[in-house]
């Protein structure tokens, strides 16, 4: 459904961030993208959704293909209309609007009548939001995150790009959110590309995973391949199969995994 | 063609006063061009450049400096208050006579005789009565008009204009003279230079019972004011300043009477004025048909250029065309009119102590009730050259 071929991204005409990233997201599947801070995960998503443009970034090489169409350096709104929706990192809700207005905006590209029902659906998923009738800017961090995910659901897209959906959510909600993601994927057949730091959960729902570092994909494989990879176990999942290491006892100097 | 002198011409066509500056600038430009095509200054070609400085002082100064350093300018034709004031000390230092269209009273005091003069302006000249003198002439006329029209009691006079250098120029001088003539002078009514809705001020004018209102502002603002006042029923006799009094303004206001304004030249349509032939010839420089109507501002521009021309001729005969000699040329004669412009420009006299070129003002009464504007001559006022009025 989506294939990214060997793209290079440059910010501000001089800063090279992605150096040949390729990935493939098959129809109806969930794919996850993991990697350390600054690896270029968010950049990859923005390159796909076209939002790079708004940050002075540009795809300088390679191509991005979504359902048979070239979308590299395309217009974000056209990309959204073709059914690809991104939930941006850092929530990014419209602060001076209410929750309901934010949700209605999520459905901006939709023409059908089901918007009202879908708002109710979102409130079912996140009952907390129903009670918050003030401006969204005053919501707590986690509430905003819920709203951001809810807004994506409102669009009823063919594919969602999620940038760190679990960030700032309580453990209970993290579980729920991933449950919801899986459910949507299953029930509505929406394809997903998830950038996530919580590798445990991400790999639990994903069919396939990529690991990025310094602007390159360094490892990829099916869920099981990754779950069984020793390095992934140690650095993303928390220790091999033995006891979970305590954060307390981390040595000050420790081995770091760098694939490069 | 080595025999050339340079004259700079600063004009405002596109700037804040462009709507009126254009008329005057055309006069100066056409005159300079005409002089060149008709033998120059006794054979010396006038190399001139007309630059639109858009009423912006820095641009004016930059042009001045450019002309000074590159073209060895000997004299300059200029336009506005701001640039003229800013250049006073430069021109005095560089000895470049400036003929501007800024008729501020204080420019007439070359030696700083009057204690009120902040800064003597020895190299500034203009053709025309100063703003103060023109206003004095208007109130002098008004005093007689009041008697003639059988008014009883003290007539009420108001200065109406913005609190800006231009409308303020004659404010005090004129109010003083009006009081002297027995007017009841109200507090000045402040009206912005920018057009707007002035009904509020008009209500004040109506309330004050003003009989004669001096209009200190220009074109659009004056149009707005007179129309607003008409709406609320305030209709004193309007005494307009020279730049606000012409056919064009009357036509735009429409529906107005008793719109009195001064002039220092004859009008385009005047018959039997000997100098008008030359004016019409000059006008053909930019309008070959010779049909185009010209305002009296245009004609004043011609006078300004021609006084300069004759002073240059005198300079050429008396040691060469330099700024200093041109200045001396201005003093060389008394009560003079440039050759060929008899009846158009009024006889003028400049002396080393007194730059009040003329002290005679023609006063016209305009009306545009019901269609085409008409202008009739109301009086000719000759003011005394009072010492306390020098530079004020």
């Amino acid at each position, binding site marked *: 459904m989506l294939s990214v071929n060997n793209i290079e991204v440059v910010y501000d005409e001089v800063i090279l961030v992605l150096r040949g990233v390729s990935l493939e997201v098959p129809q109806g599947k969930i794919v996850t993208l993991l990697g350390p*801070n600054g690896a*270029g995960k968010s950049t990859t998503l923005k390159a796909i959704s076209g939002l790079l443009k708004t940050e002075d970034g540009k795809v300088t090489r390679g191509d991005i293909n979504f359902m048979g169409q070239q979308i590299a350096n395309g217009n974000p709104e056209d990309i959204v209309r073709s059914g690809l929706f991104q939930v941006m990192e*850092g929530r990014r809700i419209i602060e001076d609007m209410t929750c309901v207005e934010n949700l209605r905006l999520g459905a901006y590209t939709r023409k059908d009548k089901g918007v009202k029902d879908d708002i109710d659906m979102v409130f079912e998923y996140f009952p907390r939001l129903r009670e918050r009738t003030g401006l969204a800017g005053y919501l707590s961090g986690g509430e905003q995150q819920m709203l951001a995910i809810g807004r994506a659901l409102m669009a009823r897209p063919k594919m969602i790009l999620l940038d760190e959906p679990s960030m700032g959510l309580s*453990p209970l909600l993290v579980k729920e959110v991933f449950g919801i993601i899986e459910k949507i994927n299953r029930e509505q057949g929406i394809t997903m590309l998830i950038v996530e730091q919580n590798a445990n959960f991400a790999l639990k729902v994903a069919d396939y995973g990529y690991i990025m570092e310094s602007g390159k994909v360094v490892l990829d494989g099916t869920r099981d391949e990754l779950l069984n990879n020793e390095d992934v176990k140690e650095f993303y999942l928390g220790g091999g199969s033995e006891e*979970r290491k305590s954060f307390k006892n981390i040595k000050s100097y420790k081995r770091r995994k760098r694939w490069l | 063609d080595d025999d050339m002198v340079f004259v700079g011409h600063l004009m405002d066509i596109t700037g804040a006063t462009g709507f009126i500056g254009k008329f005057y600038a055309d006069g100066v430009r056409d005159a300079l061009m005409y002089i060149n095509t008709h033998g120059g200054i006794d054979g010396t070609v006038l190399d001139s450049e007309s630059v639109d400085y858009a009423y912006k002082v820095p641009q004016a100064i930059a042009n001045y400096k450019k002309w000074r350093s590159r073209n060895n300018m000997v004299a300059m034709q200029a336009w506005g208050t701001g640039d003229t004031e800013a250049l006073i000390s430069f021109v005095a230092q560089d000895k470049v006579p400036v003929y501007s269209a800024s008729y501020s009273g204080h420019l007439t005091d070359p030696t700083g005789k009057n204690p009120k003069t902040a800064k003597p302006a020895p190299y500034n000249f203009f053709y025309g009565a100063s703003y103060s003198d023109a206003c004095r002439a208007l109130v002098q006329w008004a005093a007689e008009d009041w008697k003639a029209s059988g008014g009883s009691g003290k007539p009420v006079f108001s200065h109406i204009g913005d609190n800006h250098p231009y409308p303020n120029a004659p404010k005090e001088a004129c109010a003083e003279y009006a009081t002297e003539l027995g007017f009841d002078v109200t507090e000045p009514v402040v009206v912005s230079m920018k057009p707007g809705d002035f009904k509020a001020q008009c209500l004040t004018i109506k309330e004050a019972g003003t009989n004669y209102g001096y209009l200190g502002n220009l074109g659009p603002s004056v149009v707005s004011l007179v129309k607003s006042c008409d709406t609320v029923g305030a209709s004193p006799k309007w005494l307009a300043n020279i730049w606000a009094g012409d056919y064009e303004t009357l036509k735009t206001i429409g529906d107005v009477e008793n719109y009195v304004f001064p002039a220092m030249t004859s009008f385009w349509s005047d018959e039997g004025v000997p100098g008008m032939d030359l004016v019409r010839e000059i006008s053909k420089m930019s309008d070959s048909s010779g049909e185009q109507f010209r305002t009296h501002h245009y004609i004043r521009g011609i006078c300004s250029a021609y006084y300069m021309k004759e002073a240059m001729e005198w300079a050429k005969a008396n040691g060469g065309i330099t700024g200093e000699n041109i200045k001396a040329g201005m003093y060389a004669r008394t009560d003079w009119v440039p050759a060929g412009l008899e009846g158009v420009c009024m006889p003028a006299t400049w002396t080393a102590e007194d730059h009040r070129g003329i002290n005679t003002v023609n006063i016209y009464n305009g009306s545009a009730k019901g269609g085409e504007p008409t202008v009739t001559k109301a009086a000719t006022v000759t003011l005394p050259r009072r010492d306390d009025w020098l530079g004020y």
Partner: protein
Amino acid sequence: MTSQGPILQISDVSLVFGGVRALSDVSFSVQPGELFSIIGPNGAGKTSMLNCISGRYQPTTGSVSFKGQDVTGLKPNDRAELGIGRTFQNLALFGHMSVLDNIMVGRHHLLKNNCLTGPLYWFSGAQKEELEHRRFCEDVIDFLEISHIRKATAGTLSYGLRKRVELARAVALRPDLILLDEPMAGMNLEEKEDMARFIIDLNEEWGMTVVMIEHDMGVVMDISNRVMVLDFGRKIAAGLPEEVMANKHVKKAYLGEDDDATDEDEQVA
């Protein structure tokens, strides 16, 4: 400073926004040298609590005292001078400044030069002072392992790096009490480990008292001395990490786990 008493004492703090009660009569105290965590569901009022401590919000009722001094009415900048530093949940870096300058801002209250002496850089001692403090900032940078981005513009950094720079900026204040709002958000396991290490070091080596909000239970359990749980603005539990985790209410409201075993399995997976 009173060495015996708590460094931070919160007494009956309530905070109301229009109809929303963000905090209701919360009291707790933090001892010097402690690593204290606040947990709770989303919207429970954790960030609001930190805001009350750092001075961003004024509690509707109740008081906050720091080192024995009542600071309830004090402005945030005055509290910073007294020694309260913090990081933010929604990044609040100075986006257009370099990382280094961001950290130098943290030194603000310790610097003496001003708008008169600053411009006379070479002659007024401003240069000397700047360089001295620069040295300290470099230490912080080395400590937090961000030296490779020291000249980068903060706004262009990735999310995780920005969190780290924020921590550096707060550390540069050299506060006695440092408030951390979800420091591990957006980090992978490896980075969380780094972050945990920094926090422990700050607490143990640098002697800072830490109040931390965090949703990662592994981290909270492992490194904090004491934990407080908020729910709907109310304090529902407090105590040692193990005790709190075992609390029924906490499990229900926050962890959402009925049977520990399966979850542990999933965690390891």
